């Protein structure tokens, strides 16, 4: 037995207040009112002995008892007293609404799958007893509760009607775990866990599907949808030719019929490739193509089809422009350095005579070959065997026949190896604080790098006029210095489209864990994990995510909806549809109607037995509550 509308405390508080008022009014009417009269002559002739009146007052508790009993019964009716246990009465259900990207597909009926799921969910909610509580959960890659356990059907209807498909795939196992946990932690009596959706899951989540709960009910929506869509588009510049883009496209047929579809790729509105894809049911097909451009612009790949889900038929990319660093060389012997600098496709080399020197040239890097500039250089500069008077680093000594050693502990000397290279003649520099020695001889650094607002590197000898001219270390040290001075030029950019949700990035073997960053739009750092040379991060909204790995940057354009490839079919033991929804056990029984009727009858009985006309003092105050009085019998008049 329990109260449905009121708590026990509220009931007793109300009862106490009302009964106090009734008793107070009863006693107030019973209390003697002092009245001055002209004479007591006629009153004495009509009154009875006081003791007898007191006895009569004591003998009238039935009126008060009837009133209190009527109030009790009416309050019990208002509190909606029910026979039975509250725990066995209302149930708590969790309704998992599939809001994955697949639910945006249009079924054969002309409605989208999410509309079908909404209708099934509404039918289910309306079929439940009104006392059952329902928690609505949005299920896609995550399980997000939309409402708490709610009996308000209007609020549930609104929440269901506002459910929209997202862009992620469904992780049903996660949603089932969440539902079971919600019922366990917040539910009073576990009801059903209801899944309304098409059952399209990512293959990995299907493999990790936990054991299904016994109270699972599935509200299926039609999932036989013919759809083909793009799964991935990757772009990278060719290593040998920076102007050449290599593209890889993957498409999938989610339907049950083979399809042959045209794929068109356009850059800046102009078609750059057209292919014809033949897709078997349930399979993926990849193809590659190349196109050449240095300019920036929008690349669009489109499947020419009209299927159930248009969102995955098109993918776009913003391609960055090809960048190169301009290197200005002042040298009397340009042929020495020309092959060295021409080997790098990201470098545009311009040679000048020292007499043409300009202090503020239009170049990113200036190389001064055995040349003392009349004015200081305002750009990054590489000095090769500078005159002692014009060297940016003080020349401490001149050594002959010195053995060169690379400082492999410095990043500028990374990967440099030579065997006992002897230099016929070299300058030895005095290093200042912050200087980076790249190579040393016995007297000090022979190649020195000096960071600052403008970066400077000083070679104490000419590498191409020494024993190093045939060593691999020579182009490498120049490459390291150029990369140090213009790192953005040497950044390897890979573009890849993908789906919202969890993204997996394979890492190279020599990646630097300290340099790894995952940046979303607006410079927002996303959390990520690295395990077994695999980086994983999650992005819940469409946008561009950059994965920075040192000199490698991967740009993910997460615009494609994540379409789950696997299809989950509930076992036959799982209840499906609405069968048996309304027939849940309802052992608690309403008796408020009887309580109200009984209370009214008691009031009528009290009125009949004890009522009299409204006292005048009540009539004056407008108080209409009647306080019972014993009726004076006719015998009393006769006795008087």
């Amino acid at each position, binding site marked *: 037995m329990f109260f449905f509308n009121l708590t026990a405390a509220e009931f007793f508080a109300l009862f106490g207040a009302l009964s106090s008022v009734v008793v107070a009014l009863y006693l107030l009417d019973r209390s003697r009112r002092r009245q001055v009269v002209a004479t007591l002559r006629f009153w004495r002739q009509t009154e009875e002995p006081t003791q007898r009146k007191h006895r009569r007052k004591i003998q009238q508790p039935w009126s008060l008892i009837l009133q209190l009993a009527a109030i009790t019964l009416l309050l019990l009716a208002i509190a909606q007293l029910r026979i039975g246990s509250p725990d066995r009465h209302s149930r708590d259900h969790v309704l998992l609404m599939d809001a994955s990207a697949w639910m945006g597909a249009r079924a054969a009926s002309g409605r989208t799958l999410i509309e079908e799921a909404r209708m099934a969910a509404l039918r289910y909610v309306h079929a439940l007893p009104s006392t059952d509580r329902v928690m609505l959960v949005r299920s896609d890659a995550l399980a997000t509760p939309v409402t708490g356990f709610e009996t308000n059907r209007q609020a549930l209807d609104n929440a269901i009607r506002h459910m929209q498909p997202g862009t992620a795939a469904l992780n049903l196992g996660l949603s089932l775990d969440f539902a079971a946990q919600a019922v366990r932690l917040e539910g009073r009596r576990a009801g059903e866990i209801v899944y309304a959706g098409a059952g399209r899951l990512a293959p990995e989540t299907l493999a990790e599907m936990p054991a299904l709960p016994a109270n699972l009910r599935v509200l299926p929506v039609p999932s036989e949808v013919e759809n083909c869509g793009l799964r991935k588009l990757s772009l990278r510049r060719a290593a040998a030719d920076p102007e050449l883009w290599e593209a890889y496209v993957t498409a999938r047929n989610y339907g049950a019929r083979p399809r042959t579809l045209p794929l068109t790729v356009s850059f800046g509105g102009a078609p750059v490739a057209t292919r014809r894809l033949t897709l078997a049911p349930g399979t993926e097909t990849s193809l590659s193509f190349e196109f050449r451009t240095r300019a920036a612009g929008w690349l669009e790949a489109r499947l020419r089809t009209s299927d159930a889900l248009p969102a995955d038929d098109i993918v776009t990319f913003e391609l960055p422009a090809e960048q190169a660093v301009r290197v200005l060389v002042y040298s009397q012997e340009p042929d020495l350095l020309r092959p060295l600098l021409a080997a790098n496709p990201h470098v545009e080399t311009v040679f000048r005579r020292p007499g043409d020197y300009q202090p503020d040239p239009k170049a990113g890097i200036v190389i001064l070959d055995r040349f003392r500039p009349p004015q200081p250089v305002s750009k990054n500069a590489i000095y090769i065997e500078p005159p002692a008077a014009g060297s940016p680093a003080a020349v401490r000594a001149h050594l002959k026949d010195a053995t060169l050693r690379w400082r492999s502990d410095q990043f500028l000397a990374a990967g440099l190896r030579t065997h006992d290279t002897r230099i016929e003649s070299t300058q030895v520099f005095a290093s200042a604080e912050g200087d980076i020695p790249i190579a040393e001889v016995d007297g000090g650094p022979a190649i020195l790098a000096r960071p600052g607002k403008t970066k400077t590197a000083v070679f104490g000898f000419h590498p191409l006029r020494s024993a190093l001219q045939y060593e691999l270390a020579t182009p490498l040290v120049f490459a390291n210095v150029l990369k140090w001075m213009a790192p953005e030029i040497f950044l390897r950019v890979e573009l890849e489209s993908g789906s919202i949700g969890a993204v997996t990035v394979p890492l190279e073997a020599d990646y630097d864990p300290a340099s790894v960053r995952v940046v979303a739009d607006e410079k927002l750092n996303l959390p990520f994990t690295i395990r077994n040379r695999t980086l994983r991060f999650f992005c819940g909204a469409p946008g561009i995510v950059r994965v920075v790995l040192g000199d490698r940057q991967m740009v993910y354009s997460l615009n494609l909806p994540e379409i789950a490839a696997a299809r989950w079919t509930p076992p036959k033991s799982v209840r499906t549809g609405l069968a048996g929804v309304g027939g849940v056990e309802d052992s608690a029984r309403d008796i408020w109607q009887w309580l109200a009727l009984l209370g009214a009858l008691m009031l009528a009985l009290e009125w009949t037995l004890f009522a009299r006309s409204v006292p*005048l003092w009540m009539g004056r105050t407008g108080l209409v509550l009647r306080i019972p009085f014993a009726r004076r019998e006719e015998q009393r008049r006769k006795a008087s």
Partner: protein
Amino acid sequence: MAEPLLDQLFLERLERLTIHWVRSFPGLIGGHNTSRFAGAGLEFLDHRHFHHGDDLRAVNWRAYMRLEKLFLKMFQVEPRVPVRILLDASNSMRTGGDCDKFNYVRRLAGALSYVGLVRLETIALQPFSETLRDSHLCSGGRHRFAPAAAFLTSLEARGRTHFFDMAREFASAYPQRGLLILISDFFGEDGCEKPLQYLSDLGHELLLLHVWAEEDRVPPWSGELELVDAETGDKLELSFEDDVRELYTERFDAYARAIRNVALRNGGRYIGLCTKTPVEEAMFGPLSQVEAVY
């Protein structure tokens, strides 16, 4: 400025009224009520045989010339009879709620005084409670009404009502018989029938004006009451119901009938007045109907 006891318009209406009494009283000539006693009057009444010592001026000499017997002419006397207004000024007159009985009684006494003054009567205003209190005698015309009104206005209701003591004192204070207008609620500890009978036996003509408030006759209260006697301070606790109210009213009416019987039995008159009845309406209604004034 205090409100006048009676307004001017009402006083003007009262000027056409005269106080009348039924009995014949001996008194000075000059009144307006004829007496069945013969005396020095203007209107011829009868003849009788001449006796020794009679006034020779009243001998009918014409009859003597014809019949040679002495007949004496008798004339109807119109005496000036003293009018006493006994005014109940006890505490019980202060009850009545909105319709104060004492104020009503004062206005009624004032109206009767004015009627008497207009007809050149001599009016004695005599308030009483346990005993007689200071009185006010007024006569000599309407222009003497102002002191009477001031006297009535200055009266205060206090004390208990003892009709026996009052009657005894009245008998000794006013030996001359006359019209006795007793205005009261007739609520007293000792009852009023016997004192009234005593006063009547002394030769006074009783004009009893029984004044009550509505609550005196039909109490409006219900439930458990603690009643306090306005005069004695006695208390009574009782439960009062509708049916008992009827019984109460019956008792009251029986008491009023008893007072009325005393008056009628002794040749007097009884008028019951509820304070809800305006004084003006009472003067030209119930009092005129019993010919107390007309």
